[in-house]
């Protein structure tokens, strides 16, 4: 009978080293790999969009967004990624998918996606300057504001970008299997400004 506790590995295992990289001096940006955020895809049942919104409001106190926006409260967030489709996330949320299924499963299909992606939080004075080397959409404050969400292609990798706050902090998620290629692009792009890597 099994008893071993399985060791989890982050998508960047063996690739990301904590500390300062690239140009010496103050870091232009800080990259934090987040492995403590659970994700789940949420797809509204046919004709249940409004019922789902009510359930989300009742359970999480959040107004489910229409369009590419995110709303969040107490560590739980919903990001619109398509008509009737959201990515829910929760910090230290345990089995988020199970919790969602319990609370809103009558109105939506829910699938656990916690292991499907590399999750990075990027901040720092030069974060936009590094991101423009692959992000084709406009991240200028006039065009992309806190709470905005975009699904786009970065260095040929499908990436979801959420702007979390005005600092700014950007959350980038990329497919787990492409973490290595994506990391190669990101670090090459950030090296010019100097960057710190941390994990959380």
């Amino acid at each position, binding site marked *: 009978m099994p008893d071993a506790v399985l*060791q989890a*590995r982050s998508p960047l295992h063996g690739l990301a080293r904590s500390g300062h990289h690239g140009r010496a001096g103050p870091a232009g940006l800080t990259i934090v790999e987040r492995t403590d955020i659970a994700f789940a895809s949420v*797809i509204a049942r046919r004709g249940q969009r409004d019922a789902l919104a009510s359930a989300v409001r009742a359970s999480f106190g959040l107004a489910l967004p229409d369009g590419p926006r995110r709303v969040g409260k107490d560590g739980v967030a919903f990001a619109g990624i398509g008509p009737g489709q959201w990515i829910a996330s929760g910090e230290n949320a345990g089995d988020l998918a199970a919790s969602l299924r319990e609370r809103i499963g009558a109105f939506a299909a829910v*699938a656990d996606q916690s292991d*499907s992606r590399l999750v990075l939080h990027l901040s720092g004075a030069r974060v936009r300057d590094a991101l423009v*080397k692959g992000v084709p959409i*406009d991240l200028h404050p006039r065009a992309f504001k806190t709470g905005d969400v975009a699904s786009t292609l970065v*260095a040929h990798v499908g990436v979801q970008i959420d702007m979390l706050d005005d600092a700014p902090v950007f959350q980038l998620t990329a497919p787990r299997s492409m973490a290595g290629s994506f990391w190669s692009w990101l670090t*090459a792009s950030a090296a*010019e400004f100097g960057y710190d890597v941390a994990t959380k």
Partner: protein
Amino acid sequence: MSAPFRLASGGLIDRGKPLSFSFDGKTYNGFAGDTLASALIANGVKLVSRSFKYHRPRGILTAGSEEPNALVELRSGARREPNTRATVTELYDGLVAASQNRWPSLALDVSGINDLLSPFLAAGFYYKTFMWPAKFWEALYEPLIRRAAGLGRVAGAEDPDTYEKAFAHCDVLVIGAGPAGLMAALAAGRAGARVILADEDFRLGGRLLAERHEIDGRPGAAWAAGIEAELSAMPEVRIMHRTTVLGVYDHGQYSAVERVNDHVATPPIHEPRQRSWKIVAKRAVLAAGALERPIAFGNNDRPGVMLAGAARAYINRYAATPGKRLAVFTNNDDGWRTAADARTAGIEVVAVVDSRAAKSELSKLGFSTMSNSRVSHVDGKQGVRAIDVVGANGRATRIECDALAVSGGWNPAVHLTCHLGGKPVWNDEIAAFVPGTRPPAMYAAGATNGAFTLSRCLTGGIAAGAMAAGDCGFDFTPITQPRADDEPAAVTPLWHVKESRAKAFVDFQNDVTAKDIALAHQEGFGSVEHLKRYTTLGMATDQGKTANVTGLAILAEASGRAIPQVGTTTYRPPYVPVSFGAMAGHHRGRDFRPIRLPPSHAWATEQGAVFMETGAWLRAQYYPRAGETDWLQSVNREVAATRASVGVCDVSTFGKVAFEGPDAAAFLDRVCANTLSTLPVGKARYALMLREDGFVQDDGTVARLGPEYFVMTSTTANAPRMMQHLEFCHQVLWPALDVGMVSVSEQWAQFAVAGPRSRDVLCKLIDADIANAAFPYLGAREVSFGGVSARLFRLSFSGELAYELAVPARYGDAVIRAIMAAGAEFAITPYGIEALGVMRTEKGHVAGQEMNGQLTARDLGLGRMMSTRKDYIGRVMAQRPALLDPERPAFVGLRPVERSARLRAGAHFIPVGAAATIENDEGYMTSVAFSPTFGHWIGLGVLKRGPERIGQRVRAYDPVRNGDVEVEVCSPHFFDPEGARLHA
């Protein structure tokens, strides 16, 4: 030490920062602010290159990116870059450059004999001279021509520098930072718009840097610096130096290349050499200026003959004079300014030759003036010794000089207005083309728009910048127009001096002369596009920027048409040459495209696996062990060990889609050929998907984990396409079905554990009863694995008792290690996709080779899976008579009659004793493998009436690899046809 042609004072060079550089091995000095061209001129180096075809000595013609002559190899070793224009190469300390297209040296070039052979090398010579015998073209003529006619040599080693791509967005993109561009940027910037101002120079100002104009009472360069300072202080204005906008594309997209570190020997660590930009702008203002054009006359290509505006740029901006005794030949007022500025700089001006009959208002400046006259000849070979001037009376006068400045008028740089199909229009007043239909979101201002005087440039710039910002919703704050003069700018066209005896060049880079154009016309190439292809006018790195208009004007004369009737050739991006490095950016080598790694990759690497690409995935192909000498040996061992005991393979790469909802079963029934709605919870089933046209699209498995919850797998290679297909079916075909679907491919790591001892291994790992009775073949259930919730499927691709275990991907690495540890006592063997392929071939399962888009389910022996009780995609079209024809090749197994013979996939089946002709073709081999289980090669394929011919023999004929093997037709299920092992 001191450079003989450097003026004692003036210029925008920094005399406090001397720089040393070498050209063709000789060391020279220059200053910060020089270009390689200006430094060579200051040092009196006139001869810098040999021409493309005739190997004629050439000097420096221009002072900008349009340069046709002064191409050099810049830097050395792996950083050597051929065909670099000396005129836009910023000088840096230690710069190394060499001339190209010469042997043994620039001054003594043996191919210079081509000039004497030129009667045989006229336009289109290679279409005529080297036609016979035809087979000599590739073997002899082409290599010879390529060696003789050449540009520089590539480095031949990997570029050690890095390159980047980047994206920028703005309201207003201003292209060019001359007076018009600066004012446009200022107007838009003050209005509050997001502005990008891109200029290819390292210093803003455009022609202001090359002229002695004053604006608001200040020297032009100082005024420009003041505007730059104001723009730099605006937070929403971005100034991009050393950035050339290359092309215009749909929806306000522009490409540009930024030469981030071309002005240093080696880019600083972490910085790219160049960066290519995609700029998305709501509006653009094109203020790219104008390009001066030469006049065609005898030996007009001699070193020391320079465009008049360029001569002014070298004198005024770089304090470098092209000569000590300068003559000017012009057909317009602007040329006179070169004479005036040269005299101001203390250079002797020996004559101003003006082709116009009327005296220019500038003739009062007091130069030795010859009006109504033309330069017909330049004397001197590697420099100018004298010029012959033909006057109104037809008599020639010889004038001694060492440099000649020529102005044939200016062509607005209309290129970017034409990239989306716009055609420029002819303007008689300036005798040049101006923008016609512009791209929808582009304004043109300044010289580009045909406004050739400084005052008009400033006015046009303000207006364009204000309109562009206004279009983006920004209120315009009026700008006081700076004070400047409208200088004289009249022109009377003169394209070609008919009295020329020697070659009169139109296109310097391609050695196209006025005579070549006349010849092309005479031979029937009257269209300007044909002229270009026949003579090569306007081709190569400069794309004829100094040549095209003159060329078509001469064609117009020759054909008796007006210039607008002749028209221009098509303008295409890029505006200037761009390196492949800049276009590739980060994406070269291993970063060419993203690589997908399965969860066991790190572990497999530790095992010494050999990997191969399947789609974007890198998968373990096989796991060689010490002593194994080839891949087949390793694969045979992996197959044998799996069949004897147990093996493990990472199958995480399969596509995985979750379906949830009351209509999930109905949806799957419509998508798949077989019925899935009858699948009980806790069971899995093989699933077959057809295309609309009835052919097989993909296969996989579907497992039902709940009454309304299914998980489907699809093949690795087809996974993205299947997801698209499923989304299309749901969103477009049947939006009314209440089902949610989402890819969970990345969420799950999945391992196939196969072989008679597979259950023994898994029993050690999971908390569940998986005995045969409790968990029979095709079972599917959730299990707990070390406290992690996992999924277990009893599926087999290998034909063995087998399971697929799925765990959340973060545990994939831990789980493969746990499986290996648990299996150690059974000598568990990891196997790669080669062994996987061998085992499925032995079992007769179809794979990608069979699902090739040309075979139906019936062809593949899967006809019984096609439900007759429901409708599904592909059902109707699969019933087309031709697809039901019993003569169609159908799925069989094949083995060589001579058991040691090797089989080849792709071989065609021919009846024994029949000729290998198309008529006798009876099908083909789709897959082959060496079967260690049977000790010989086996194959799968489709054969006409194959299933009825078990036991017969056919030829497997493979003309590509000289294969001709007699094979015996058999069941495709070589291994365990009863499936006893699956159910064990």
